[in-house]
């Protein structure tokens, strides 16, 4: 499966191109020079101990966090900043940033569904408000997406009535409603009870098989092993090791990787 996707990956511009990314929170440097690319159609899984910066890096991709140094491109476009004619870097307009974000879907650890709207309304909201999609069209698409994640029966339920796994699947449908070219998963199953993790991973796996470009931060090593095209191990704000899952999990080359995997597996 990984080979099929690798051959299907389009050559040319990478979907994500991160160059020497640095990020600090006050005086704490959390990202110390991250350089990596994600090809179109590729599924990259990022693993590492907490505090390693993997979630922070993920949030830099759609500019929920501002980077302090370096350049980050998504599908060829510089994210969060623009290059002025005289070669300087200036902060981009909110409108432009929003436009780029609309093409990147994000799934959060705590779901972040809108509690004052039903599942269906949650999924319909962004296409209607951001893309100005007509209501009936948005509704039809939303129902289709809820069906895709197996929740068409729950269309009129409020998030408070849904289990964690159901909420997360609605959240995935909501992100997909904007037709993104890239999906970011921030520990999407970490807040779920074990028996509900599977239903969410199933949806994520399906997305991967359909060719979606995905960057996944997770602790689910089984998922990483089976679905990832590439695994990146981060620790202390740097990429320690990256490679094919078989290689990273079975034959890790760096000692820090070995230590981490020993603790997890």
């Amino acid at each position, binding site marked *: 499966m990984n080979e099929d996707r690798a051959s299907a990956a389009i050559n040319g511009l990478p979907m994500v191109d991160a160059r020497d990314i640095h990020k600090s929170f006050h005086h704490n440097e959390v990202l110390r020079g991250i350089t990596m690319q994600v090809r179109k159609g590729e599924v990259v899984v990022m693993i590492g101990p907490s505090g390693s910066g993997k979630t922070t890096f993920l949030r830099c991709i759609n500019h929920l966090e501002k980077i302090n140094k370096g350049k980050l491109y998504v599908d060829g476009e510089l994210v969060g900043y623009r290059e002025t004619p005289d070669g300087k870097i200036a902060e981009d307009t909110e409108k432009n940033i929003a436009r780029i974000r609309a093409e990147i879907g994000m799934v*959060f650890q705590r779901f972040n569904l809108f509690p004052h709207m039903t599942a269906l309304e949650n999924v319909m909201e*962004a296409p209607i408000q*951001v893309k100005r999609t007509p209501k009936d069209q948005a509704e039809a698409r939303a129902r289709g997406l809820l069906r895709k994640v197996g929740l068409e029966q729950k269309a009129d339920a409020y998030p*408070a*009535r849904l289990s*964690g796994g159901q909420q997360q699947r609605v959240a995935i449908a*909501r992100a997909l409603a904007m037709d993104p070219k890239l999906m970011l998963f921030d520990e999407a199953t970490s807040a779920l009870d074990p028996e509900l993790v599977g239903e969410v991973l199933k949806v994520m796996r399906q997305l991967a098989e359909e060719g979606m470009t995905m960057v996944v931060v997770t602790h689910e090593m089984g998922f990483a092993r089976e679905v990832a095209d590439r695994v990146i191990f981060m620790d202390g704000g740097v990429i320690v090791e990256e490679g094919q899952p078989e290689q990273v999990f079975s034959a890790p080359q760096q000692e820090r990787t070995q230590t981490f995997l020993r603790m997890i597996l």
Partner: protein
Amino acid sequence: MNAIIQFFLTLLHAIVQFFVTIVTLNGQFDWSRVVENLFARIIIEGVIITIILAVLSQFIGSVIGLLLYFARRSDLAILRRFVGLYVWFFRGTPLLVQILFLNELAPALHLAQPLIQLHIFLKLGFSQDIPVDAFIATCIALSLNEGAYMAEIVRAGIDAIDTGQMEAAKSLGMTYWLGMRRIVLPQALRVIVPPLGNEFNSMLKSTSLAYVIGVGDLLGSSKALASSFFAFLELYTVAAIWYLALTTGWGLIQAQIERRVNASNIDPALLDKRPWWQRMTGLRGPTGGGPTGGVPIEAPVLEGERR
């Protein structure tokens, strides 16, 4: 020891004596005066003015509070500074002083001159011509004052909403303003409504301060009537009855609004939908059911969800 007991007994006697005097009103309270003036024209007009003043000022004050919230988050340092000074001043000086102050400035409202000539209140059917400039000045004072307090209420309401909500909105391509309008503010409203309701209760009573400048509010009218036939206690009672009616009436409306807006964070599907008389008394209807009509009081923690 004896002396101490003696002292307290004397004190107790004096206090009891005092209250008896008040309750029996030294035999000089004339209830007929109260009854005949309760619905006097001037009093009713006073009630109407009070309501208009309260509603207008609360509304404008709330808008100011919202504007102050955004101003506080502005990139311009001057704006942020201004908010700090504004809140400090209007919370630091008595409302009465603010009303008197603005009333002095009232003639300076040159715009109000043509309005005064219009004799709006006479035209609307009031029995006396209320000076429009004083009315406007009072309204402005009340609004500005209220704005300073609403700023904190709005801030607390908006901050109560999890930051993940705005992040989710942004990640879907919404701008800050769109996210505010569609996602954050609607949720913040649920948090803001109860304290806002309490503020309006307070506002209904604060309008009484306007009597000092004669805008024809309830207290002002009561005092005027009291002077005319020297029945102060009776007319103050009329005023008190009306203020009580207004605040109680608002209390009922407030409860209804809070129910609809779901101000207590219950899952909408679990809201108590029984008729009001059942809700208030807890009596079961003809169909029976538990004290809450079979509806659970707390939203269940659903399986599989970590809190």
